[in-house]
């Protein structure tokens, strides 16, 4: 089997699992809408539009965290990861497939979340949508990677936000910048740079995360 078909088979497995069990996506949708309602009440009346734009990014990062925390749970509970590591495929394919599946969930949640945000707060610019798309790639690349590490530790669910949030700060900077600045191109380029750098780093080092003891 080629690399592409490995990735496709693994991603298909995750999407099918979600389609049948519906564990993650409904939770993410409910969470993001509930967060918006909380934000509405935490913004005093007369707050600027800019504040709401910033909060959109908080909601996205935390919704993503919710999905990422679930990403490797089936692998852990059923000990699927042992099987995957034994399978004759490149180990980075495991990361790539999981990242693609998580990206699909996050994108699906945002397809609902962004219109809801527009309804509750204010309209969304094309630059914001572009920034969300670019940020999703970075969030899923780094988050899936860290998720795989976090499930192997004793602290598990506790650890992922601690590992992920410092790495998500540049994404939030780029995203908020693209949402509020009059010239968003620079921020979009920054997000693309982040995706490229961390994408390559995760792809190259994932093998060591799932490697058997040697």
């Amino acid at each position, binding site marked *: 089997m080629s690399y592409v078909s490995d990735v496709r088979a693994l991603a298909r497995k995750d999407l099918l699992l979600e389609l049948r069990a519906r564990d993650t996506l409904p939770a993410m949708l409910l969470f993001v809408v509930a967060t918006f309602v909380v934000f509405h009440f935490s913004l005093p009346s007369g707050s600027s539009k800019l504040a709401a734009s910033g909060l959109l990014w908080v909601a996205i990062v935390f919704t993503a965290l919710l999905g990422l925390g679930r990403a490797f749970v089936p692998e852990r509970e059923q000990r699927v990861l042992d099987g995957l590591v034994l399978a004759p495929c490149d180990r980075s394919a495991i990361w790539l497939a999981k990242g693609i599946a998580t990206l699909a969930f996050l994108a699906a949640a945002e397809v609902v979340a962004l219109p809801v945000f527009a309804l509750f707060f204010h309209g969304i610019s094309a630059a914001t949508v572009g920034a969300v798309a670019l940020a999703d790639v970075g969030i899923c690349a780094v988050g899936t990677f860290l998720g795989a*590490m976090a499930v*192997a*530790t*004793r*602290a598990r669910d506790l*650890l992922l936000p*601690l*590992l992920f*949030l*410092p*790495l998500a*700060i*540049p994404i939030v*900077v*780029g995203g*908020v*910048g693209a949402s509020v*600045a009059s010239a968003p191109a*620079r*921020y979009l380029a*920054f997000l693309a*740079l*982040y995706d490229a*750098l*961390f994408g390559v*780093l995760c792809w190259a*080092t994932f093998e*060591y*995360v799932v*490697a058997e*003891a*040697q």
Partner: protein
Amino acid sequence: MRAVVRPYRIPLPALAGASLVLVTTALALVFFVVPNDADQGFSQRIFYFHVSIAFTAYACFAGGAWKALVHLWKRDPRADLESYVAVHQGLIFGSLVLITGSIWAKISWGHWWLWSEDQLVLFLVLFLFYAAYFMLRFSVDPGPQRANFSAVYALFGVVLIPVSFLAIRIAKHFIHPIVFTSHVTSNLPGSMLWTYGVAQAALLVLAYTLYRVELSGKRIDARLRELRTA
């Protein structure tokens, strides 16, 4: 894992002596020799320590990442512990950067914390990142998996440093005067420059000494444990 003494290593007492002499010289220079800064007066003297500590912390993080790379690449059994100790020293010096920066900000601008200071904000991000390194390391049982996780995470750190720095730079919506640009040397007069040089050397040697002390302590600890289980 047998503790191997590398022949080219400088003996620890010599290192400790060198750091004692250098740190004393640096303190004497900073407090008694170098003239007051024209704008900021006496309080500017914290600059010699603040900036040197910051550079030393970067050096520690870079050293930790280098050892992490050696671990992943060459499978050197010593590299994991060396990487951890370097990151540990980096976190200690990083905390000192936050403390000295905060004191300097309070004296110069009247606030303990300023979001407009790039270097301080960057160190806050790095502090959070490397604090999570310890959370990660100590929630995995000792062994190859822990070594791999730590190494990979330390490598993420050196990519995060420039990316975060860029992020903090572009996050500014207003122009803020930069007191110390990347070429510190160009806006410092002679005596200030070599005072800074001595302070920088002192802190680098001090950090290396502390690194070696901690490393040898950890090695003895590991060896003792090995003997106990044997």
